[in-house]
């Protein structure tokens, strides 16, 4: 979590009064605030200490909940839906296109560390399939052409907030 200072991390923890009840909120917020997209060990230790539980307990949460990651992620993690409603109504266009454009398989990072795409269960955007979700943002009803465009825009840094 190179981009977050210890103060910034503490600020996020304080937002939830370091309440163990809010450990998940804290971890999710920390991960979303970091550019590496995962909880590193130092951060896990900090959270453990601040909310007053063991480090093991924090890692138990990280490994149980799918959103939380313990390894560094690509700069842009492209989430696509792998649940049945989407899979049978347009989603394959996205996985096929991404494989072609990026030249990697699902769950493999591109050599430049920029992209990784992976299937996750329904995110509630089933009426907008085919879509790609990056962090909180859904790019809905995509055509093959728009997927190409999105990737080149991301490469060019046109979505700094993501």
């Amino acid at each position, binding site marked *: 979590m190179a981009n977050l200072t210890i103060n910034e991390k503490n600020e996020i923890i304080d937002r939830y009064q370091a309440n163990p009840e809010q*450990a998940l*909120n804290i971890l999710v917020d920390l991960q979303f605030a970091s550019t590496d997209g995962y909880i590193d060990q130092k951060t896990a230790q900090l959270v453990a200490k601040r909310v007053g539980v063991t480090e093991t307990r924090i890692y138990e949460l990280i490994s149980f909940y*799918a959103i939380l990651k313990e390894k560094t992620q690509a700069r842009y993690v492209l989430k696509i839906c*792998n649940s049945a*409603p*989407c899979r049978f109504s347009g989603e394959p266009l996205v996985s096929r296109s991404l494989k072609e454009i990026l030249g990697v398989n699902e769950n493999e990072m591109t050599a430049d560390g920029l992209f990784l795409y992976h299937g996750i269960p329904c995110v509630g955007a*089933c009426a907008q*399939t085919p879509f790609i979700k990056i962090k*909180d943002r859904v790019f809905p009803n995509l055509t093959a052409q728009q997927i190409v465009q999105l990737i080149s825009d991301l490469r060019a840094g046109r979505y700094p907030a993501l």
Partner: protein
Amino acid sequence: MVVRNQAVLTARFNKLQADPTDIDAFCQLDGYAGLKKVVEMDKTAVLDELDRAVLLGRGGAAYPAGKKWRHLFYAKGQPKYIVCNADEGEPGTFKDKTLIEHDPLAIIEGMTIAGYMFDSPQGYIYIRGEYRNLHRCLRKALVQARTANFLGENILGITGFNYDIKIISGAGAYVCGESSALLNSIEGKTGRPRVKPPHLADVGLYLQPTLVNNVESYANIPVIIREGGAAFKALGTEKGGGTKLICLTGHVKNRGLFEVNLGTPLYDILYSEKYGGGSSTGRPLKFIHFGGQSGPIGAVAQLKDCLYSYDGLWANNLAIGSGALVVMDDSVSIIDYLNSVAAFFAHESCGKCTPCRIGTLRILEALEKFQKKEAVPGDLEVFESMLTHVTQLSACGLGQSVATSMVSSLKLFPEEFELAINRQTAEQKEVLW
């Protein structure tokens, strides 16, 4: 007055478009009329209204809300907690998300009515991690409610009516939609289900009596109080009152969220321009997966006279579940479709109990074999008994419903399974132990 064929839960959606958390606008549109009325009522009369309304739980299990509330009302122990399950994760479902986006205060009002009824100090909204952008909207709505003294201390000027609501984020675990897993998750633990009984109304959050209801259920509560149980029931049918938010996805022209009166003809929902608008692919519609991945499958051709209501679907061995309707055309093989369903469950099983942890994998393997047309005589029987094992032996609702779609498909499309079996090969018998 509410009448049929008129928006009820979605009535404020357009009017609050500028800012769904605007509490003044909300109050001008009947907002908080339910809460204001409830504090004037006798609490047991409120329970009677709920019974009269026949509100069945909108999360999927269709448990009568009146019964749940009554149970908690008479449960011993204080404090009691109010929990809103916003961990919407049933594939093909986005109605809770839409409600939170467009009318968050309706949910908050429903939860506050519950807070009043049970003298609860604290409510929790457990919202799934993938809905992070909605957290902001909810947080804003809570701030507005606090500022207007609809939350906090001495609400509505009533001494001792102290109640507030917290938001807790999930982080990507379907099983947390199961009420007891959800409570564990709020307590900061991994979200695995608890062994039941005891009932959560007796031993829930932090071992205290707890009410867990779905987002849409809470949004219905102010309507019931405002309009009365009988009027609410009249919006639906004898066995289930009110309207239902439904999510149409798959191969229909108009995908999206709709509000329908319970009792609307299913074919209207599929084919009328007002709702689904018919097939989007030009091919005939083949089947509908109802209520999420844990729900049953129905063949479109057999449902011509079916009404979309609890009783109407039950009569066809179907169920409303979450309100999802995943509609597939005749290009989709049922075996391919079920493979996807099975993969979902194998991924989401929390691993606590063996029948579900191992069973979901075995089911997936069997379906993959069917898909490759590599099954041998006997495989189908083994598959069917595996479905029975997993359904009967699993500890929670997740494992118990894995097989629902498969059991209905076996009945509806036996020929597709038959085609997957190579009858030239030797028979395989189930190995009993």
